[in-house]
């Protein structure tokens, strides 16, 4: 964990995880008895009966609940569907949780293998959307101005997480193949691999431009990478995609490479497990493994009121049930003891200015938070640069009043977005 600095003149330094020179193999645990996949739910659709309970699935088989929609999940195991139930995730997103009881013998689906000779975007997005690392095919396909640059993150944006760093350093062959395939199917020739510090060496002829960023948070966040590496400023309220830049996790590229190399869809997720005592390890587990199973296998006990976090400590989200499965974009699982987790308070801002000096986007957070606390979101957006926020969470991290500033900012953006919908309907 991070210790607070004695000298307060300098900015807080949240160092990124540093991997040892000799990379250990990820720890694997035996497959669980059942796994759960989260299939996006469409409220207007009925469920087709073909994917009912008892349906047999093979490893790598594509499971799609709606015939006319592109949503699907890939089964990481061979077995039978044991249950379908509605599930609510973050920000009210709804899913159908497909539970598969793992069978004894494993057999592989060859749907992808039959078509892989001719790699296209269509093929990639219809088979590899749920690959480990979550390749953002929809961003590539739906970008208005077209994607001109692909940035591969060989460094996780959050501290404590080392998944993509590990994958980028240990799966060089697949990474190279993945970059090759990416170039072929997207037509984008400008591919940049981001690494930490001086670790530019060792990548050789990977097929991408290797650039390093600083080893402190938040230098691997998209907006900072855009500014420091690409020299482009993302205007407030715009996204990196608007500037023609698409971010891929290194693991996603490796998944692409692996799939086209072996003909089998990769279904195991590499992730960083951070235990309560602060030690972390790289583990590998099938997508869909319930968190409870992973924690049990690694000897970690979770008590009442602890927190289990998916994603990094600065931008991740806490899950509410230990049955939550590992998803394709779950780069880390962090278990935080109830005493160690940051608490928030309803104390007012004392105007100490820590947030203002820490903010990488130079937002007047001390003023912004006063407007946000009073629910004056439009004022906050117009006068105090709400949309310049790059969502790093550092303001909440340093706040002496422990105001949940980051949460206020997210809420404000969410509310403003919601307010836009009826306006558009009126017009």
């Amino acid at each position, binding site marked *: 964990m991070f210790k607070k600095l004695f000298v307060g003149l300098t900015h807080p330094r*949240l160092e990124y995880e540093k991997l040892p020179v000799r990379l250990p193999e990820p720890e694997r645990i035996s497959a669980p008895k059942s796994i759960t996949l989260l299939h996006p739910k469409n409220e207007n659709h009925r469920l087709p009966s073909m994917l009912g309970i008892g349906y047999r699935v093979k490893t790598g088989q594509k499971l799609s609940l709606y015939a006319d929609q592109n949503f699907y999940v890939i089964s990481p195991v061979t077995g039978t569907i044991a249950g379908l139930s509605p599930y609510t995730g973050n920000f009210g997103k709804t899913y159908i949780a497909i539970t598969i009881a793992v069978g004894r013998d494993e057999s592989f689906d060859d749907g992808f293998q039959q078509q892989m000779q001719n790699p296209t975007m269509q093929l990639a997005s219809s088979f590899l959307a749920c690959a480990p690392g979550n390749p953002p095919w929809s961003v590539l396909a739906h970008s208005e101005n077209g994607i001109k640059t692909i940035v591969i993150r060989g460094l996780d944006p959050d501290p404590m997480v080392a998944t993509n760093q590990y994958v980028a350093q240990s799966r060089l062959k697949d990474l190279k193949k993945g970059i090759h395939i990416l170039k072929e199917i997207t037509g984008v020739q400008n591919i940049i691999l981001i690494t930490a510090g001086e670790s530019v060496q060792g990548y050789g002829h990977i097929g991408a431009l290797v650039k390093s960023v600083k080893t402190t948070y938040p230098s691997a966040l998209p907006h900072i990478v855009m500014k420091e590496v690409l020299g482009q400023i993302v205007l407030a309220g715009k996204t990196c995609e608007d500037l023609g830049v698409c971010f891929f996790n290194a693991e996603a590229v490796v998944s692409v490479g692996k799939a086209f190399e072996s003909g089998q869809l990769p279904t195991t997720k590499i992730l960083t497990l951070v235990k309560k005592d602060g030690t972390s390890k790289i583990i590998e587990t099938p997508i869909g493994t319930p968190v409870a199973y992973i924690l049990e296998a690694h000897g970690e006990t979770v008590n009442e009121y602890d927190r289990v976090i998916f994603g990094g*400590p600065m931008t991740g989200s*806490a899950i509410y049930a230990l049955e939550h499965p590992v998803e394709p974009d779950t780069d880390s699982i962090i278990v935080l003891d109830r005493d160690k987790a*940051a608490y928030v308070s309803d104390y007012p801002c004392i105007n100490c200015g820590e947030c203002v000096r820490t903010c990488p986007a130079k937002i007047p957070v001390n003023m912004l938070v006063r407007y946000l606390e009073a629910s004056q979101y439009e004022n906050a957006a117009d006068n105090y*640069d709400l949309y310049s926020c790059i969502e790093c969470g550092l303001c909440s991290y340093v706040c*002496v009043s422990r105001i949940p500033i980051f949460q206020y900012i997210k809420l404000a953006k969410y509310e403003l977005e919601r307010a836009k919908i009826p306006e558009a309907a009126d017009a």
Partner: protein
Amino acid sequence: MLEKIKPVEQPPTLIQKKLIVSHAPFLHSGRRITERSYHTMLAALPALLLGFYHYGMPAVGVVCLAVSTAILWELLINLATRRSITIGDGNAALIGLLLAMLLPATMPWWAVITATFIAVVIGKQIYGGIGSNAFNPVAVAVAIMMVAWKDLFNFDGMLLNYNLDFATLYPIAAAKHFGSASAASFSLWKIFLGQQIGGIGATFGLGLLIGGIYLMLRGFIRWEISLTFLAGVYLTAFVFNLANPARFAPPAFHLLTGYTLIGAFFLATEDSSSPVNYIPMLIYGGFGGIMTVLIRNIGVWVDGVILAILVCNLINPLLDKIRPQALGKVV
């Protein structure tokens, strides 16, 4: 059909545990308001201890009364306004302590209680409590007391009965009334070591400097404000001294006497009433320093620190509008 789907039964081995769901970030730097208050009080201790040594039990009495009544006023206001009790954050105690440091050791008890009432209730709580006060509560209290009971802040008169091993003459008053020649009779080094009369905790230059450096290094106060305040005092006094060396005391004398050091490190840096952006902090501090010497040298008041800080508190909101352009801001 969705309705017909039975929810998956929980495997018997899993016991449902309540997890806390909260928003990112899940880490915190560990800094707290309480920490800020207590460390500021800690930094004030060296100067305060010398005050105790010089003035004995009366000084201890004033400090204890000020701290305790400040906490009490805050508690009463908390209860009266039915808001959560905030005395635990140490801010009220800090206000009481800093206030007592500015008072003479012989301050009558009713005046101490009145001063803490003004500081905590009028200076801070009626604005809405911590973080909302436009003016430094301590400065507000001292300014009102100075206007209302002028004699209580006449240190020469108040400390008349003390028999100390140095001149019981308030240096800044002497310099104001009798010119530079009077200032020259004080050894700057001895003044720096606290050999001067004045407020209980405001006279020990070395102690205040140590406390100030500690606070700046730890990041509890903003060094930009303190240093530009001192620079403002020094430069303005230098110009005055250059213009008329016989009438105006030298700059170093202004730095070490009166409330200059305690003002620079403990009063001007009060969070809520000072700016947070870089350039505004420099202007704010420098302006405070300039105003201090202007009031001292050509105003009617003996010491200008308190009033100068109130004046810069006044322009603080305006100053803080000077800020860097946010990332990707569309003008």
